[in-house]
């Protein structure tokens, strides 16, 4: 359609003099928006009381009698599926649409992401209006989840092409935005629900509508701002190193070929182990600190601890990926796995029965969580080092299936181990030790996979690198 021709890749090629520093804010506008997904839990309680409040009136906070949902209300466990569906469709769509994205360009992909993500909110608002949970599954879970996946990978290869001198820092900035999206999404949702709340309505439906509109507009900023560099563009004064680092290739590997290499699957394990271990502490952060230091940490302080970890998760994405530009990706992951294993081993020893040091436990947890975020942010540059820039966004999309698997395995592993320990009479505070020691084992598996990574063999290189075509290696 001619009306949408401005979205075409060839209409978004930057002219001479375009500042590459406009591209990270464009990418951030997408990631800060879709990162809202991590804050979806703020809607769970209001969604759990919709019928009860509309019958009883007075709003959730204002009515002390509203302490349990109506029989017609949606169950908490059913509501949990909304976020799970969104994350599953994030992984699936990133894997499926990655190749299309490389062909269509970042502008069209960002637009598709904005349409899906905003539509997810609008359909969910309808679901609240008619009280049909399947509409929220379809809206926020499936359609919104597809928006998350396309949006997540949309700026990756473009940023890498604009910042060949600092690819880790560039992608780290965008992926830090995904970590930071919840920081905006949670208070925004709470403020909007407070604003729209009446005696008979918790304001969820109107909040969904307004958030869909706000995020659509914010993402359009990214759509109109993003540009791809001209073929052969390089930063002024920058010369590619004559002798690149051992793992950094000057060649390209097509996404299907990359999928068949050992290196892809080693990196898949690296990401999966790093994320699973990180989830191990994130998932249990609040109860863990309260049980390790029983009587000394209130629920409010534990919530503060979780918030502090979010800051380190976000900051770690930028800091570790930037550091990787100097020390190399492989060495960065060595740090994650070796330092991570040591810190996971030490963490339970800081509890009341050991060193009894809250500051030490907080510091250890903060570093661990920073490395969890750093693992996400450093992996696109690792892929670029191994497979080149040509289809790095698509390859990254497929690698994100490791995240989906870790997202299921991490919490399941932690919960099952704790349940087993509890059933065998192990005190709650001690049951964390076993969980964290299992995480040490996972990190060692990741360490071995990282150690096995070697440059991709020439048989996988893309042979006719005709720069300037649709699938272009800039």
């Amino acid at each position: 359609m001619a009306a949408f021709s401005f979205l075409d890749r060839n209409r978004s090629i930057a002219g001479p003099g375009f500042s590459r520093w406009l591209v990270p804010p464009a990418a951030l506008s997408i990631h800060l928006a879709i990162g809202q997904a991590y804050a979806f839990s703020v809607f769970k309680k209001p969604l759990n009381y919709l019928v009860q409040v509309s019958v009883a009136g007075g709003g959730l906070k204002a009515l002390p009698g509203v302490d349990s949902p109506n029989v017609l209300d949606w169950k908490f466990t059913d509501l949990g599926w909304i976020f799970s569906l969104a994350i599953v469709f994030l992984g699936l769509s990133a894997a499926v649409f990655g190749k299309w994205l490389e062909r269509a360009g970042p502008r069209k992909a960002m637009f598709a992401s904005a349409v899906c993500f905003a539509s997810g909110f609008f359909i969910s608002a309808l679901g609240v209006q008619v009280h049909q949970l399947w509409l929220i599954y379809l809206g926020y879970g499936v359609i919104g989840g597809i928006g998350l996946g396309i949006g997540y990978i949309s700026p990756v290869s473009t940023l890498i092409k604009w910042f060949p001198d600092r690819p880790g820092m560039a992608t780290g900035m965008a992926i830090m935005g995904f970590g930071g999206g919840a920081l905006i999404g949670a208070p925004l949702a709470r403020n909007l629900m407070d604003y729209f709340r009446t005696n008979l309505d918790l304001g969820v439906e109107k909040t969904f509508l307004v958030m869909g509109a706000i995020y659509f507009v914010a993402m359009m900023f990214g759509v109109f701002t993003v540009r791809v560099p001209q073929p052969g563009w390089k930063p002024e004064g920058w010369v590619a190193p004559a002798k690149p680092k051992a793992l950094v290739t000057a060649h390209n590997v097509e996404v299907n070929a990359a999928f068949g290499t050992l290196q892809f699957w080693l990196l898949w394990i690296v990401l999966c182990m790093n994320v699973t271990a990180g989830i191990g502490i994130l998932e249990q952060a609040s109860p863990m600190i309260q049980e390790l230091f029983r009587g000394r940490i209130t629920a409010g302080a534990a919530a503060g601890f979780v918030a502090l970890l979010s800051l380190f998760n976000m900051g770690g994405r930028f800091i570790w990926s930037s550091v990787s530009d100097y020390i190399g990706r492989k060495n960065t992951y060595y740090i994650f796995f070796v330092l991570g294993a040591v810190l996971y081993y030490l963490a339970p020893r800081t509890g009341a029965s050991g060193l009894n040091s809250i500051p030490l436990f907080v510091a250890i947890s903060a570093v661990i969580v920073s490395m969890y975020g750093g693992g996400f942010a450093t992996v696109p540059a690792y892929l670029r080092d191994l497979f080149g820039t040509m289809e790095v966004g698509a390859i990254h999309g497929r690698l994100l299936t490791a995240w989906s698997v870790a997202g299921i395995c991490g919490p399941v592993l932690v919960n099952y181990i704790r349940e087993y320990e509890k059933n065998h009479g192990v005190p709650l505070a001690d049951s964390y030790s076993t969980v964290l020691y299992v995480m040490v084992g996972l990190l060692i598996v990741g360490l071995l996979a990282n150690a096995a990574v070697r440059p991709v063999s020439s048989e996988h290189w893309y042979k006719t690198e005709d720069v300037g075509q649709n699938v272009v290696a800039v």
Partner: protein
Amino acid sequence: MVDQVKKTPAVLVLLAWLFVGLPWTWGVTQLWKNASKLFQSPPAATAPVTPAGK
């Protein structure tokens, strides 16, 4: 004839960063308010009791 290269004005770059930076800063401020609860001393009822005379 000299080629005219249209350079992106620095103010445009600054505005773009403000567009994403301001809501982000607001979000970080909100989060920090929560995080600071960790550093507040526990209420008297939950504070560890120090036996008198020790």
